[in-house]
């Protein structure tokens, strides 16, 4: 697998992977917004033929009242491409970029309370911790765990 920073031409492939994998989806404009505001912090994994099989779509939170920190909008790997450690590698690269380019001290993300598989990935594999529960975070009324990983 080839792992590298995402470029504008990868965004449709990321959108396709996201639509196949996850219930939270976005129109291209939102991907473009990420790619054209913080082009450094999103990454893709592609197979030997150049198809996107995993991605991390990330951004920076620039609330001046808080320390600069990154936020993972979406991360996923196609089911057939699991057990290669891709999510971990994508997350590492994104964090590195958040830190060097934007001075981020931590990275946050949200996950549906019922999404046990994702929760396990963030907690056990990637080392995130639950900070709080955000009630009715999702459009359908479901609560979210707000999670955070401090960078060393």
């Amino acid at each position, binding site marked *: *697998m*080839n*792992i*590298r*920073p995402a*470029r*504008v*031409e990868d965004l*449709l492939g990321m*959108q*396709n992977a996201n*639509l*196949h*994998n*996850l*219930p939270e*989806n*976005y*129109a*291209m*404009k939102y991907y*473009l917004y990420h*790619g*054209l*505001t913080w*082009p*450094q912090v999103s990454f893709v994994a592609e*197979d*030997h*033929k150049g198809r996107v*099989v995993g991605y991390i779509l990330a951004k920076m939170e620039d609330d001046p009242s808080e320390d600069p920190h990154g936020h993972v909008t979406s991360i996923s790997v*196609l*089911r*057939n*491409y*699991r*057990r*290669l450690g891709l999510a971990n*590698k994508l997350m590492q*690269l994104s964090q*590195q*970029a958040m830190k*060097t*380019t*934007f*001075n981020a001290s931590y990275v946050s993300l949200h996950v549906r309370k019922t999404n046990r*598989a994702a929760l396990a990935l963030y907690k056990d594999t990637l080392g995130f911790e639950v900070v709080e529960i955000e009630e009715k975070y999702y*459009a*359908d009324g479901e609560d979210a765990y707000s999670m955070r990983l401090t960078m060393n």
Partner: protein
Amino acid sequence: MPPKAGTKAPVPAAAKSNRYLPSKEAGLFKQVLQQYETKEWKKGLKTAETILKSYPEHGETLAMRGLLLANAHPDRKAEGYDLIKEGCRKDVGSHIVWHVLGLLYRSDKNFEEALKCYTQANRIERDSLNILGDMATLTIHLRHYDAYVDARQAILRMQPRLRKNWIGLAVAQHLAGQYAEADRTLRNYEDMLREVPAGEYEHSEVLLYHALVLEEAGELERCIDFLAEHATSIVDRNAYSVQRAHLLLKLGRMEPAEWAWGTLLEENPDSYEYIKAYVLAKGADVDSKTDEGKAAAAAVLTALTEKFPRSLAIRRINLELVSGDEFRAKASKYLIDALAKGVPSVFADVKSLYSDKAKRDIIGELAEGYRKSLEATATFGVSLDDETASDETIESSAAYLWTLYFLAQHYSALSSHAAALTLIDQAIGHTPSLPELPMLKARILKRAGDVHGALAAMTEARALDGQDRFLNSKNAKYLLRADKVEEAEKVLGLFTKKDAPTPLSDLIDMQALWVLEEEGKSFARQSKFNLALKRYHQMFNVFQEVEEDQYDFHTYCLRKMTLRAYINLLRYSDQVRSHPRYFNAAKGAIEIYLALHDDPSTVVPAPLTNGAAEAAAAEKKKEEEAKAKAEEEKEKSKKKVVDEGKKPANKKAAEEDEVPPPAVDQDPSGDKLLATKEPLDEALKFLKPLEKVAAGNVGTWLISFEVAIRREKYLQALTALKTAHSLSPSSPLLHPLIVRFAVFVPTLTSFPSAVTETLQAGVKELIGDLSVDAFNSSVLQKGNSSEYVLAAAKGASSIHPESKEESEGLVFQLVREGSDASLKIVTEALGLLRSIQSSRVDEFVKASAAKFPLAAAFKSSEELAAAAQKAEEEEEVGKEVVED
């Protein structure tokens, strides 16, 4: 931005008098402009109408009335346009009327017309930044690079203190290919800046953009010096290091290049870019075509693997380069690592090596060896490195399972469907709970042509994990392949937004191209051509949306200074339709339009009584309900704002609030699309972008030929054939078209001789000195491949439409003992026999069924019904499990 009544350029006295309003009405006109700006369209309309009562000829008011009308009542937009145009006629010297017309065109995404209006407004009112800014955005959106430079220069002259105006000019110059000027503008800008805070992101982005300009200008030495000079101000360290490393390589400074790429590999040893560049710095090349070159690159990669043992990318690239025993040893380690870990993708990963038959055989032997050894001793049974004679690690039973899984894919890829099925069934027996296994079984059956069996297996896979959207998507895809559209949408609906009117409407909003394409193809197979066209048009619209998405970024990126990404966006947007899904949409739609042209009676809308039409009607109804609900919500929220006496938090929020709900689709089932009287013009709309951005794809020119010949543009048809020929001289798909054209050209007797002579000369270029018959047979000498046999059969059917024997004879070769024809080729051959109304169709179906016992295409309707019944029963089982 609404027009503003600013200072006006001197205008002729006559026009001036036309524009004059006494102070009361002049005040009202200002109010109209304001009401437009605050989006109080209905109020604005009333105010404008008050003015027009006394001054019915007042051009600017007429124009504003038209604009307000179009905004307040989208259904009366045409009337709005008429009013504005009348306003333009009454007062051609007013910049306001042109600005207003430009605004409406722009909101309709008619950027060409909008730009004409803005240009006119700008001519009259040179000093309006408002007009100039919008005009600049339109010029770059339409890629008028030189005009963009002019507009940016004018803006900079008016506001030289704004950073973004300097950057805007530099970008314009860069895009126009004026590298030296862009460089100078950026240098001036950098010199002008004082006290940039350390580590400022925007400044860092500008510096990296400047470096990009220098590199694209070929100023490599200056570029690398520039980077060194500004190294401490650049915060995007990765971009800095990568560009510098590329420059070192381009400048031939191999030692520092090696060091630079080596450092980058430490950060990410799985980047193909880094790996390939490192090899280049070492004086070798992974893309080398010679044995020596490959060996040299392999040696570098082997050494690199020692350093980065966890990088799969390095090892995978190396598998391309090594051969023989070295390949066997490296492939074995690669496979065992993956199988022991249970990596499902390892077969997909190595499959592209199968184009090399020797590698394919080695991989097959290795995997068979693992299976036998795991069965006998629970070890892979081969030495993993040179020190140990044999590896005695006892593997878990999972390793055996993944080996079976791998082998099943191996045999499926070799079209040994029965062997693949035996293996996957064995694996399922071993571990019935793993969704990957029935998922693979579905794929094997699909390849064997058994759509219903494939669907049943995929339904089973989804039942094993109802929480997983990936399995859900695959199940929906297989339902669509089996033409069960309604059920597919139900399955998809388990994961779409609950508040969307229908699952499909959410998927369309989310631009789910794969769903649209699969539905389009399914509807086409079911002869529901209206709905198929509808889906292909929806795909077309998605690509148009993506192209139009760039609009806001023309100004956004100048504020954010993310200029390298912006340049990428422009280049990407220019060729976004080269995406394979656009090609498929275009091909699907054009085939229907061609059929519609050839014989409209064969292409009729699906009858109204069927489920799909009902679904379409239901969709429209639901959409209308949703729209009404949205309106209601909006009213409520507006009231709330008024009640609380608060203004919306910011202007942007207010704008969003006022955006009218999307119009209800008036043609949800595509009947109007299918009712077109100009199918070839419609076909052209899909084709034109392909000729531009997919000109390197033979398929583009095959379609282009079919459209041109029906439009009686024979020179264009010839050009299409010649272009296809230059791209792929031995394309089996092109061959029958050349034959068809060669047969056709001599029948053109009523054309001017200049044209027919060109056509004849062109044909001769394509077929040489051979007769058409001889040319057609010559394709068989290009190898015994079944594709060429089918090509010759198609050719023969155009040469001898009256006698079917030759075509039939050729086609039957495909199902002979020992033929290697694929299911796809044989299915196409059956289509040919049917189209020439051969009497041997049944015989051919029988022979095909013997060759492809699982394929639905060669089964009788009774057999199919039985298979569908069986699949349905299994699906029921699946549903129960999900509901658990």
